[in-house]
C-alpha cells in the first residue's frame, strides 16, 4: 500500500501530465503556421476548374467547420480534446476525405516492421560485442573493434544513410533506392522477399549507428562492472569465462540497457524519419514528412500523439518495472 502511494501513483500522475503537456504543445505549434490548410486545399481544387465564388466561400466555411478550425484557439482546443477522447482523429487535409487513422494504419506496419527488426538486431549485437570487448579490453581484436566503432559512432545518421545510398543504391545499383516492396501484397515468399530486399539498405543504415552506440555503452558499463571484487573472485575460483561474462557481468549491466531498449520501442511510432525520407520508405516517418509539407495538422497530430503516448508509456512501464528488476530501488 505504501509502495502504491509513494511510488506507483506519482508515476502514473507524471505519465498523465507528460502526455497532456506534450499533446497540448503539438496542438499549439502547427497552428502558429501562417499556412492555412483549408486555403491550400481550395487552391488545389480551383487550380484546374473555375468554380462559382459563392460556392468557394461556402465550401471554405464548411471545410473550416469540418477540420475544427473555426472559432478562437481556445474553442478549437476544447473541441479537439472532446473529439480526441472519443477516439476520433479527424480527416486528412491533404488526402481529403481519408480518415487520419486510415493513413496512419497504412504506414504503421512498415515502420513497426523496420524498427522492430533493426532495434532487436542492433541491441543484441551491440550488447554482446560490447560486453566481450569490455571484458577482454586488453586483447588486440577488442582494441581494433573499438577503434572502428569510435570512428563510426559520431557520424550523423543522415551521413551514414547517404553514403550507403550512394554506394549501394546509385553506383553499384545492388539495392533499390525507393519504395517498400514490389507486387501485390500477399503472404507468399515472392512478395516477402521483395519486402526484405527493399528494406535491406534502410535497415542497414539504422543498424550501423545503433550498434556503435550500444557497443560503446555496453563496453563502458562492463569496464566499470569488472572492477568489482566478485569478478576477481570468480576468476580465482576458475569459473569459466563464458559463464562470468554472460551470467554475472552482462546480467549486472542489463538495467540501463533494458531501459534504453524499452525507450527505443516506445519511439517506434515516430517512424524512422530520415531513413524513410531518404529511401522513400512508406512508413510513418514518410507520412509525417509529407504531412508537414502540406500543413496537414490532423496527421501531424495523430502521429505525434501516438509517439508521445508510446514514449511516455514506455517510460512508465520501465519505472514500474524497476522495483521488480532492481531490488535496490525497493529499499528507497
Amino acid at each position, binding site marked *: 500500500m505504501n509502495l502504491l502511494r509513494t511510488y506507483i501513483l506519482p508515476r502514473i500522475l*507524471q505519465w498523465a*501530465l*507528460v502526455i497532456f*503537456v*506534450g499533446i497540448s*504543445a*503539438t496542438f499549439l*505549434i*502547427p497552428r*502558429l*503556421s*501562417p*499556412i492555412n490548410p483549408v486555403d491550400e486545399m481550395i487552391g488545389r481544387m480551383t487550380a484546374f476548374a473555375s468554380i462559382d465564388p459563392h460556392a468557394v466561400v461556402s465550401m471554405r466555411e464548411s471545410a473550416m467547420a469540418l477540420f475544427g478550425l473555426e472559432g478562437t484557439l481556445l474553442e478549437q482546443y476544447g473541441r479537439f480534446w472532446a473529439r480526441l477522447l472519443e477516439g476520433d482523429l479527424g480527416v486528412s487535409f491533404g488526402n481529403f476525405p481519408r480518415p487520419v487513422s486510415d493513413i496512419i494504419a497504412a504506414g504503421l506496419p512498415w515502420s513497426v516492421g523496420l*524498427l522492430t527488426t*533493426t532495434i532487436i538486431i542492433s541491441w543484441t549485437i551491440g550488447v554482446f560485442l560490447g560486453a566481450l570487448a569490455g571484458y577482454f579490453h*586488453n586483447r588486440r581484436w577488442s582494441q581494433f573493434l573499438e*577503434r572502428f566503432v*569510435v*570512428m563510426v*559512432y*559520431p*557520424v*550523423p*545518421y*543522415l*551521413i551514414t544513410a*547517404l*553514403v550507403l545510398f*550512394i554506394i549501394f543504391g*546509385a*553506383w553499384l545499383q545492388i539495392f533499390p533506392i525507393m519504395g517498400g516492396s514490389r507486387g501485390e501484397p500477399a503472404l507468399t515468399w515472392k512478395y516477402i522477399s521483395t519486402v526484405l530486399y527493399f528494406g535491406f539498405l534502410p535497415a542497414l*543504415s*539504422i543498424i550501423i*549507428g545503433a550498434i556503435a*552506440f550500444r557497443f*560503446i*555503452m555496453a*563496453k*563502458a558499463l562492463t*569496464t566499470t562492472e569488472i572492477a568489482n571484487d566478485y569478478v576477481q573472485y570468480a576468476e580465482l575460483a576458475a569459473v569459466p569465462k563464458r559463464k562470468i561474462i554472460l551470467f554475472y557481468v552482462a546480467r549486472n549491466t542489463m538495467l540501463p540497457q533494458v531501459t*534504453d531498449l524499452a*525507450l*527505443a520501442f516506445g*519511439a517506434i511510432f*515516430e517512424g*524512422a*524519419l*530520415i531513413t524513410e525520407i531518404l529511401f522513400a520508405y512508406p512508413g510513418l*516517418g514518410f507520412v*509525417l*514528412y509529407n504531412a*508537414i*509539407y502540406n500543413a496537414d495538422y490532423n496527421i*501531424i497530430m495523430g*502521429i*505525434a500523439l501516438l*509517439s508521445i503516448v508510446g*514514449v*511516455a508509456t514506455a*517510460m512508465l512501464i520501465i519505472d514500474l518495472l524497476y522495483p521488480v528488476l532492481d531490488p535496490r530501488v525497493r529499499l528507497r
Partner: protein
Amino acid sequence: MFTTIRDLIKFSPSFRFGSLILLIVAVMIVLSFFSPYEAGKLRRKVKRNQPPSATFVFGTTSQGEDVFWSTTFAIRNTLTISIIAVTIGRGIGVMLGMLSGYFGGIFDRVAQSTVESFIVIPRLPLVILIASILRGSMTMYSLGILIGLFDWAHPSKRYRSQVLSLRERDFTHTAVFSGMSTVRIVIREHLPFIIPYMLADVISGFLFSIGFEVTLSYLGLADLDSPTVGTMIYWATYYQSVFAGRAWVIIVPIVTVVLMVLGFYLMSVGLGEYLDPRKRLVRLSADAGEESEDEEPRKDKDGAWAP
C-alpha cells in the same frame, strides 16, 4: 591550462588525432577570410563541372562554384551555427539543471516535469515543423537559435544529477559543518568539478548541432543561399551530382562532416579520459600505452545517430 593540453597531446592518441583534425578545420576557417571570392557569391565564377585538379583542388560544381573555397565558407558557417546552438542549449541546460539541483523542492519538481515532457515530445518532427513554418525567413543565425532551443532537456538532466551527487559527497558536508557559505561552496568546491564536465559536454553539444544542421539543411529547411556543409550536400543532391558523375561535389562535404564530428568526438574522448580519475587509474595500472577510449555515451535517443 597549456601544460594540460600538452600532456593530453603527448599521452592521449585520441586527443592528438582529434586536435590534428580540428587544426585542419581551423586552417580552413582562416583560409575562408582570404578567399578570392566574396562570401555567398561563389556561383558562376569558374568553369563548370571540372574534376579535381591542380587549379581546382576539389573540383567545381555544375553551378560554376569552386568546391574548395565553398568548403572553407561552409565549415565557418556550420561552426558559427553550432556555436550559437551550443551556447543557447547548454546555457539553458546548465542554468536549469544547476538551479533545480541546488534549490530542490517545488522548483525542482516543476522543472523536472517540464524537462520530462520536453524529452517525450518527438524532437526532430517538431523542429522540422517549425523550420518549415519559418522557411523563407530562415537565416543561419535563426537556425542556430532553433537548434539550441531544442537541445537543453537532456543536458539539464545531466547537470542536475551531477549537482545532486556533488551535494551528497563528504567534502560538501565537511564544508557545510565548517561554516562555509553556500555561494562559496558552489564556487570553490563544486565548480572545479562541474567546469571540466561542462567542457566535455560542450564538445558533445557540437556533435549534436553539426548533425542537426546537416539534417535540416539536407531537407531544404535552412537558409539555402548561405553555404554550410549541409546546404552543400543539399545542392549536390539537388543537381543530381551522384547520377551525373560529379561525385566530388557530394563526397567533399560528406568527408568534411565526418572529419569535423570525428575531430570533436576524439577530442572529447581524450578529455573525458583525462577528467575521469578512475580512468587515469585504470590507465596507470594497465600496460603502458594501452588506453581505453570510452566515455559514458550520451543517452539522447536522437543524438548523433538517431533515425
